[in-house]
């Protein structure tokens, strides 16, 4: 089979943006473009599309709605939001409902956008190939692997930890860590399915740690709960940390419950199929944080030692 160019679908209500993007991506992929979100959803249903890049503010169907439909109908398709304004609700919805890969702001940086789409296309190509192989395998995840999972709640207060315990079945092991150190210890010792982190500061260690978590534990999913209505923070967590869910504090119980269940299921999937983990590839962290790397490095070392000990 010849290596066909990946297909990329651009959705934006402004024709000129689409013309410009066509020029940028000329020759690199099969380009599809539409100003209608509804049409975009139809196309994704009808044929294989590797990457969808959509604007948010469109009349009719919004970008997040498009991406949510794409996530539902074609989960292997990678999703990117390219938008001129990042309002908090759209950003949160894009990660919670659209489970997007990257959030890119307009005006975009040409080489950066090319890179993001190229990476996404590579991942999608692999996944479409793997999906065919997986089609014969069991569709659902073994309940046992979900129940035996472990969840760490990083919460200096305790209210969120209590809530998480309440929402999960008793068989799920919930660790309550009051400090980042405690949480990292648990992460080093055990295979943690989900980290629920309470984030009170945009610039503290916790935010930095979340961004680097994917490098250490690609199969661990992060649910962030925060009172901060800071879209820049969440965009950073999406692009650099590929967090799984973002909930505003105080969290709506049902949303948190659904998020936890989804995270546990996803973790089980990732453990069963290590190849899927590359879907959560993250960008190199931007900016320096002197405090954290040292700690994470220690954790990383311990994990490595443990792994080496098991092998050797």
């Amino acid at each position, binding site marked *: 089979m010849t290596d066909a160019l990946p297909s990329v679908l651009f959705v934006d*209500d*402004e024709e*000129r*943006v689409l*013309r*410009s*993007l066509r*020029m*940028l991506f000329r020759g690199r992929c099969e380009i599809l473009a539409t100003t209608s979100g509804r049409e975009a959803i139809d196309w994704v249903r009808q044929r294989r599309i590797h990457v969808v890049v959509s*604007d948010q*503010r469109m*009349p*009719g169907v919004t970008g997040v709605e498009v991406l949510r439909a794409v996530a539902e109908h074609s989960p292997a398709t990678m999703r990117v939001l390219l*938008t*001129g*304004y990042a*309002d908090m609700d759209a950003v949160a919805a894009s990660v919670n409902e659209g489970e997007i890969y990257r959030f890119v*702001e*307009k*005006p*975009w940086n*040409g080489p950066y956008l090319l890179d993001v789409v190229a990476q996404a296309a590579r991942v999608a190509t692999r996944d479409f190939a793997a999906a065919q192989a997986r089609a014969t395998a069991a569709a659902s995840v073994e309940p046992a692997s979900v129940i035996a999972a472990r969840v760490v709640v990083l919460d200096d207060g305790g209210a969120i930890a209590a809530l998480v315990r309440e929402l999960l079945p008793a068989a799920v092991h919930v660790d309550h860590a009051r400090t980042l150190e405690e949480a990292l210890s648990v992460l080093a010792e055990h295979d943690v399915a989900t980290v629920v982190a309470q984030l009170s500061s945009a610039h503290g260690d916790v935010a930095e740690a979340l961004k680097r978590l994917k490098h250490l534990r690609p199969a661990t999913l992060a649910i962030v709960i925060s009172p901060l209505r800071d879209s820049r923070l969440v965009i950073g967590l999406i692009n650099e940390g590929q967090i799984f869910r973002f909930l505003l504090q105080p969290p709506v119980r049902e949303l948190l419950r659904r998020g936890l269940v989804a995270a546990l299921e996803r973790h089980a999937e990732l453990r069963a199929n290590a190849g899927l983990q590359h879907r959560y590839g993250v960008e190199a962290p931007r900016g320096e944080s002197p405090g954290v790397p040292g700690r994470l490095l220690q954790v990383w070392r311990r994990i490595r030692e443990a792994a080496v000990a098991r092998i050797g």
Partner: protein
Amino acid sequence: MNPALTTRARTPSAAAPADLQPLQQQTAPVDPHTSVLDVARLFLDPRHAGLLSLAVVDAGRPVGSISRYELMRVFLMPYGRELYGRRPITALMNAQPLVLALATPLDQAARAIATHIRSPITDDFVLVDADGCYVGTGLVLDVLRAVEGRLADRGGELERAYARLKSSQLQLVQSEKMASLGQMVAGLVHEINTPLGYVRNNVEMTRGALGDAAQLLAAQQAVIDALTGASEPDADLDVRMAEIEELRPRVDAAAMRDLCDLLDDTLHGVGQIGDLVSNLKDFSRLDQSGLQKADVNKLVDSALKIVQHLLRKREVSVVREAGELPQIECAPAQINQVLLNLLGNAIQAIEHEHGRIVVRTQALDGRVLILVEDNGKGIAAEHLARIFDPFFTTKPVGQGTGMGLAISHQIVEQHGGMIRVASKPGIGTRFLVVLPVEGRGKRP
């Protein structure tokens, strides 16, 4: 310093209660048995020159007052002196004098005097302490002066309060403007970033293409030079030919046409950004004093532009009917603010898919009429009377200041115009703004 003196010489401060204490005259009272003649002699005493009357006190309590006027009346009668001279003063005294406690507040004392007073003023009032014992008298004139002093103070206070109110009103108008501008920012940022996105990309693409074209030209030129030159072709020729092969498809006629289209797009985008910036400039100009001649149709179109992202987002169609209008004298930034307020409200009132806003302008009788009508949810009759009230809002807490219409109303009134509303819940709302062509002439 004698401590007794310092404690007594305490001037009433502004914070001290304004009562009758400072007005007290420690006049010696008159015994009830004193004869009329003796009382007359007391009045002749230079120390009592300023007094209108003397108090008659029995066992420390005031029982009456005798006025100079009464004595004069009696002595002017034929044989008056002889008839009344030896009688006790109780025969002539006013047995119901005006008695006030020292601690009576100034306002209350003034009122009591006003109700008691007869013309001509013949009596001073008597002062007693908390137990009702005589302590002295007080001059009515002094009360008048004290009250006048108080009024002057209050006048100053009122002026200061008015000045503060005026400045906080200006702040409110400004913050309402900022609040409504803030609401627009979200959409405006998007409106600006979108053309900015493709403008930047197109320029980058063009630069890249120009670079390729330059390279292609150089390679082609080199080949031509080699062909027309005297010397043998060198190894470079191969490289040049390969370059040409590679670059030709990238820099072909189709690519050039596409790039031209992209540059047209770029110019359009830059124009859009320019428009938005100029609209913003119009809106933000503080323009407190400047009355200018402005075209209302242009102001309406400018306001529609600023809200166009909201219109698109909610799929609201706009019916625009622009009549021929004379220029009007106004503060354009303020009229802009009113228009934005009305349009914003109209859009927010629409909660269904078939939103429609009609904006009509018309000239009539030296005035300009602006109509903004929506087919939104309308305003209930009981709210209609209050919608121009400051802080009145039907929106949930946190949304809107409730000042928009109040300020719009004020702006229109200051321009010498008027603003009216009609509404039917479930059908829609209509606002009519009437502005005079001739300006009001004074500072808005």
